């Protein structure tokens, strides 16, 4: 038996370039933090870091789910509306039954989201409607449902039980629950995508849908799973949202889908499917949040924020393209030398 091949040049080049993608985000993050901190040292105070992490948590949870869907060469634009439905459902439930423990709230949120995700998945897979169209449609539909249900109603912080609101501020071992949940979600989904069969099959489906069918991968089951994960995590994010912000109306999470897609794309997940990592998407979420905070602290016109996010998305897509072309070229060169 031959030993496992040692690192060949091509492998080094390849893994090097892939790492560059996530490394790029980390470098950008570091540069931004250093610059902001030099002009406003309190940017790195404990309270400030806590705030940034708390703000990242919700976005990162959703980005993890979105990354799974995007890796399969689909997209889920309904996540903002799913967050809204889940947040409002859970908030209403908690205000009506203040005695319910937090875990019930979390489970209900997950379930509501999973149901919405299932609907998306069924329409995409069995209705043969492109994900863009389906989730654009359900984005409208879910939002319309919340509006019709909630109308002008609002669940205020004082109607919610204390332990529900406290959840957003409580910590365990100094790490806020929200951050912990986000870490567990991003870590768990990363692990699933990296080390489990179903994860690799999802990559395979995004990398070459036709070959995935031929390889006997249970494409339908996996695609439903991807949309359910995205929906369920958006639902979970809804619970976290309700707990953190305390004030929930029908517009909760409106427009979030853009930030989530931005985080995923900036985090290096290619919209053409098959490549990118979940933890990259988490980093993307962190980067976007830090940019938002830094702009506030640096006293830069807040209106720039959206423009910067847009420019970042475009930049990230261009960067991915360049990396992909480079890889292809370096591999081809290597082959032609052999």
């Amino acid at each position, binding site marked *: 038996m031959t030993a496992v091949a040692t690192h060949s040049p091509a492998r080094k080049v390849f893994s090097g370039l892939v790492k560059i993608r996530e490394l790029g985000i980390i470098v950008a993050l570091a540069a931004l933090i250093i610059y902001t901190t030099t002009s406003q040292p309190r940017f790195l105070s404990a309270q400030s870091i806590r705030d940034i992490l708390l703000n990242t948590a919700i976005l990162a949870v959703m980005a993890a789910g979105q990354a799974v869907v995007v890796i399969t060469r689909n*997209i889920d634009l309904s996540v903002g509306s799913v967050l809204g439905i889940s947040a409002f459902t859970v908030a209403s439930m908690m205000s009506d039954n203040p005695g319910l423990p937090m875990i019930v709230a979390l489970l209900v949120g997950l379930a509501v989201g999973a149901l919405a995700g299932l609907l998306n998945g069924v*329409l995409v897979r069995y*209705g*043969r*409607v*492109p994900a*863009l*169209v*389906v989730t*654009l*449609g*359900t*984005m*409208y*539909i879910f*939002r*319309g*449902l919340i*509006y*019709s249900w909630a*109308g002008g109603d609002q669940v205020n912080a004082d109607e919610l039980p204390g332990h529900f609101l406290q959840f957003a501020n409580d910590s365990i071992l100094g790490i806020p629950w929200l951050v912990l949940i986000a870490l567990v979600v991003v870590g768990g989904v990363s692990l699933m995508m990296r080390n489990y069969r179903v994860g690799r099959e999802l990559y395979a489906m995004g990398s070459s*849908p*036709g070959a995935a*069918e031929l390889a006997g991968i249970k494409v339908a089951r996996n695609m439903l799973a991807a949309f359910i994960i995205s929906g369920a995590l958006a639902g979970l994010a809804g619970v976290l949202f309700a707990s953190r912000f305390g004030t929930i109306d*029908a517009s909760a999470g409106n427009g979030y889908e*853009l930030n989530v*897609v*931005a985080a995923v*794309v900036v985090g290096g997940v290619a*919209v*053409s499917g098959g490549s990118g990592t979940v933890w990259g998407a988490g980093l993307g979420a962190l980067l976007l949040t830090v940019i938002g905070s830094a702009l506030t602290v640096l006293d830069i*016109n807040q*209106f*720039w*924020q*959206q*423009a*910067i*996010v*847009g*420019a*970042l*998305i*475009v930049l990230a*897509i*261009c960067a991915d*393209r360049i990396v992909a072309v480079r890889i292809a070229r370096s591999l081809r060169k290597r082959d032609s030398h052999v």
Partner: protein
Amino acid sequence: MSDASVSPRSFRGGLGKLASWDGIIILLTVVVIVAASLGVPNFGTSRNFTFLILDLMPIVLVALPMTLIIVTGEIDLSVASILGLASSLMGWFWNNGLSIETIIPLVIVIGAVLGAINGFLVNALGLPSLAVTIGTLALYRGLAFVVLGDGAVADFPFDYTGWVTGTIGGGSVPNVLIPIVALAIVFGIVLHATPFGRSLYAIGANDQAAHFAGIRVARTKFWLYVASGAVAALVGILWTLRYSSARADNGSGLELAVVAAVLLGGVSIFGGKGNLPGVLAGVVLLAALQNALRLQDVSGQALNIVTGTLLVLSVLLPNIVSSIRTSRQRRKLRQAATS
């Protein structure tokens, strides 16, 4: 999905049905209008006609180039943001003392440039149009806010604002119907009666075959984005004048309504199929439905649900019909074989 082994029969079934899908939409539109005129008080009035046209003006205009883009299998989600940026710029230029006669062409040119940026990213760099235009959607809207902030510029001359909201000779035909009809004819001819239009269908259905037939795929699509940007900017101007208010948030979310209308009109999101009359019917159907429902005091929230459902159904229904047909044919074949 688009397995190369899709059977020719399903192509024929799909295509024949598609032709009738336009027919269904056009018929449905007529039915909705007739039913609303009879059943909804105040729907069939001439003033309501004016309002209806004014309400659908932005969607129908933006839908024209969008139809061409989707026929080539691409998409442009940044149109509403270009509209907003055009509106912001219009206000900013106006505040800085430019004359409106300078502003209008200037803003349209800027819109074309914004479209050209999309076109460059998508076609010269070969990036996926969905991702690119989600990016520029955020970018252009952000720039709109950078230009004008949260404020509004309102003091546009009445000669212009009045023209946009006015009617021809004070009758019941709104002035904005002139640009709508003119541009619809132009885009209709370009799509349906020019070599350029022919090439769009070829690109959308199979860009490789189009390339092999000597069609300059990237360049062709590039100009569609330019047209889309210019038209979106024009709509930004009309929007600003209609509401006498230049604001950065003008038209936000419009891209979804436009895409919904185009798909509802029978254009395939995969490209290569669809026609302009269908799209026009789709736009009118959505607008008439919304107008009628609003007159019936159905809330705006329910309108969201209607739009979303129609969007999904417009793609889902033809698929369901075609799969029922295929499975029925298969069953027939099997029965014929066993008997």
